[in-house]
């Protein structure tokens, strides 16, 4: 399989992790209480660590002398390939919880499948990630039940978040020509097949949390082509500020 395609695949997965990791990191010192603040930031660090592994592999395959930091801090919006669900603003704690639940459930299935990749580096990153994802899912699943089946206000906020997020979940299970070619070569994961397992898992938890599964249409995607929501630019402005203002700065 050609290296460029695998580099692009690693970049996509790295961007997913980096952007969501950044969104979670925004809770640092803003969590609902100290213990949850620390736990959320632990999760953010897991995502950022995963982003480093994928982006450094992408940079190595690219062979153009760029590092993981160059990819994270000097690419512009259109060069970021993350799925849109990861870049939406963190919202309230219910929004963060529901997004984590939807994404964590998908990530557990995705990384279990990626462990079987014919690319040994991707398989190794997946093996490390899947353990983290299972813990993340345990946390977000618990919170979904706690908030969904909690007070009238927490239930309403969860349902609003679910309705706002639902249309973005289709993109988690979309394949394009590049991922299809990598799938045929045994490198990539069949996202379409994941949805059959994700939907019952998610539906059962939503039901248990006394929430309603939204009957809403898919929203336009575009993350994999670099077509983003208005929110990514603002996120990158903060994420990349130091390297943009002081190029090459180290500490």
């Amino acid at each position: 399989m050609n290296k460029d395609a695998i580099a692009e695949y690693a970049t996509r997965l790295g961007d997913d992790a980096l952007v969501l990791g950044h969104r979670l990191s925004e809770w640092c010192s803003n969590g609902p209480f100290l213990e949850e603040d620390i736990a959320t930031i632990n999760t953010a660090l897991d995502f950022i660590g995963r982003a480093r592994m994928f982006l450094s592999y992408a940079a190595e395959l690219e062979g153009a002398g760029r590092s993981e930091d160059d990819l994270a801090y000097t690419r512009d919006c259109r060069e970021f390939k993350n799925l849109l669900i990861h870049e939406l603003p963190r919202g309230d704690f219910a929004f963060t919880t529901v997004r984590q639940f939807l994404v964590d459930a998908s990530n557990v299935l995705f990384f279990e499948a990626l462990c079987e990749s014919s690319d040994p580096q991707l398989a190794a990153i997946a093996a490390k990630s899947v353990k983290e994802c299972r813990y993340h899912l345990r946390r977000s699943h618990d919170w979904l039940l706690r908030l969904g089946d909690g007070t009238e206000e927490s239930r309403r906020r969860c349902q609003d978040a679910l309705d706002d997020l639902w249309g973005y979940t289709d993109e988690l299970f979309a394949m394009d020509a590049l991922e299809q070619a990598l799938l045929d070569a045994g490198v990539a994961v069949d996202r379409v097949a994941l949805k059959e397992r994700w939907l019952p898992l998610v539906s059962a938890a939503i039901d248990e949390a006394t929430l309603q599964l939204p009957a809403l249409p898919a929203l336009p995607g575009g993350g994999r082509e670099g077509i983003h929501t208005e929110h990514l630019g603002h996120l990158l402005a903060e994420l990349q500020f130091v390297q943009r203002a002081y190029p090459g700065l180290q500490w």
Partner: protein
Amino acid sequence: MKHMPLFEVFIRSKRGLDHTHVGSLHAEDHQQALEYARDVYTRRSEGVSIWVVKSADIVASQEGDRDSFYDPMDDKPYRHATHYVLPEEVNNM
């Protein structure tokens, strides 16, 4: 937050050692306390096993009980092995 119970956290740092008290945290229930203990107290791989127990369930001795609890032991040196003179033949006691 005010209504969340306090839990005490005990961690076994490696197999064969005892669980040691490392601190406390607030959580809604035992399950959440266990997860927060993992996130708050084992971030640098400190443990292989975690116990959490509601602080309210711990019965502690009181400072005021000190005299009646511990002083009577002071005049019973024969409870320590070092009180006894061993024969030469017994090494490494």
